[in-house]
């Protein structure tokens, strides 16, 4: 880990206009990111995904973003034209979504989708792109890359689909990966295998990673640093190894309410929410 800062986010706010009025999804999130692994954890509606999407300018049309500063190296992410975004998305920052079933194009072979991702940012001929795509499928530990290359997304399993997603997102060699619940739809062992692949690739290529998840334990065993979000606010930031020393009652409550394998059938402690946590 170096001290070089890749991404600076200050006072990020995301607001949605809905028929029922304004919804304040993210309320003043700030953080700096170096070449490290940052986890963002929270329950549904905490604003963790919206934070990730805002960094890539993927907020839905009825939403608006404001930030006093949102910079990736010297690129000001707050004021990019669609054309400038295309130079950033995929090439320099890319995103792995939760469910490969819905994030891959169902009517295009996996190979062609990876080639498309690569050629969008690299001027190479088809043969070279094909070669790179197969190499990338090997890198995500797919045993029979040629078969998967020619398959359609519905022909592969969930774990395989997510490896394909990782291959596609990593092939343009971005500096920052935002992974939004990349393994939540997978079985536990497959989930850990996919994370190991992501771990190795991110480490070998010196990428930074933002890992968004609802699973506090998983994130802290995988990341260097964790932001805990509640109702659009970061309520606590801690080193992943210091999770057991969490101070905020929300973080503690989340840890306590998990069932434990200690053979104890007593009632689980219930998370009692306090109104003050949601005050900025």
């Amino acid at each position, binding site marked *: 880990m170096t001290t070089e800062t890749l991404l600076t986010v200050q006072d990020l706010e995301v607001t949605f206009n809905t028929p029922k009025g304004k919804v304040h999804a993210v309320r003043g999130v700030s953080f700096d990111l170096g070449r490290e692994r940052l986890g963002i954890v929270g*329950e*549904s509606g905490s604003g963790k995904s919206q934070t990730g999407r805002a960094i890539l300018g993927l907020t839905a049309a009825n939403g608006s973003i404001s930030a006093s500063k949102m910079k990736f190296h010297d690129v000001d992410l707050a004021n990019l034209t669609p054309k400038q975004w295309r130079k950033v998305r995929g090439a320099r920052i890319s995103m792995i979504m939760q469910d490969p079933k819905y994030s891959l194009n169902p009517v295009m072979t996996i190979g062609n989708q990876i080639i498309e991702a690569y050629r969008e940012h690299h001027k190479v001929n088809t043969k070279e792109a094909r070669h790179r795509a197969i190499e990338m499928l090997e890198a995500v530990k797919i045993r029979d890359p040629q078969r998967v290359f020619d398959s359609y997304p519905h022909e592969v399993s*969930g774990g395989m689909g997510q490896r394909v997603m990782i291959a596609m997102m990593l092939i343009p060699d971005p500096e920052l990966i935002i992974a939004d619940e990349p393994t939540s739809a997978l*079985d*536990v*062992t*497959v*989930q*850990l*295998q996919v*994370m*190991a692949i992501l*771990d190795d690739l991110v480490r070998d290529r010196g990428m930074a990673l933002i890992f968004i998840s*609802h699973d*506090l*334990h*998983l994130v*802290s*065993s*995988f990341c260097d640093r964790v932001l805990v979000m509640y109702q659009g606010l970061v309520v606590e930031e801690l080193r992943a190894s210091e999770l057991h020393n969490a101070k905020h009652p929300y973080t503690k*409550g*989340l840890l306590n*309410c*998990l*069932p*434990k*394998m*200690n*053979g*104890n*059938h007593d*009632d*689980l*402690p*219930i*998370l009692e929410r306090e109104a003050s946590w949601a005050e900025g």
Partner: protein
Amino acid sequence: MIEISKLNAWFDDNHVLKDVDISVPENGSFGLVGESGSGKSTVLRTITGLVDDWEGTITVKGNQLGPKRDKDFYRLVQMVFQDPFGSLHPRHTIDRILTEPVNIHGLGNSDARVVEALKQVGLDNAFRFRYPHQLSGGQRQRVAIARALILEPKVLLLDEPTSALDVSIQAEVLNLLGRLRRDLGLTYIMVSHDLAVVAHMCDDIAIMNHGRIVERATAEQLAEGTLEHPYSQQLYKAAGGYDRAVVDTFVDWD
């Protein structure tokens, strides 16, 4: 309460349950754990009559089940499904959702029963005339539990009842299920992919892989981590969080 022996089931040519034996005493709580495709949900679906092609014996409260389930069976056994978004009719009010089983079984007095069922699952009476989309995931799962309870069954089949919920809501629903079992003397078979949930809720546990029970354990054995089958050991390690070195020891069980 429930005795299952040599249960086999097929989806067309696909042999999905292989010689499954389960025995659950009255007021017991039995947990089935496994990954997708292990057949854990199929066991519940076969008991409740949603699978046609099966062989073996299933006995519930002394009665051996045939190919069809009658109304009496459903008064005794009810199922709660995983997805509280998909299992409630979107255009029926909670009141109508809860009244329907009462009418089907001709129990009468539906008004008082609906009030009682909502109370049992800790929902305020104000929810009674709302629609499912006006409720949160946890509240919907409580409605699904209330719908099962309204027939005063003795057995609940729980198919991943909390896996679609946030952990803080999961804790509330698990506590509710624990309390209901104590108060109403219910018998549970609970299916989950989460070892910790099953260890917390159940006395006896079976670990399934590819349609077969590969290992049985008590909650105490799980607590001590003394599992013998390599597949169960792998599941146990995976539940401990991410550890790069541990992942390298994983093998595929295809």
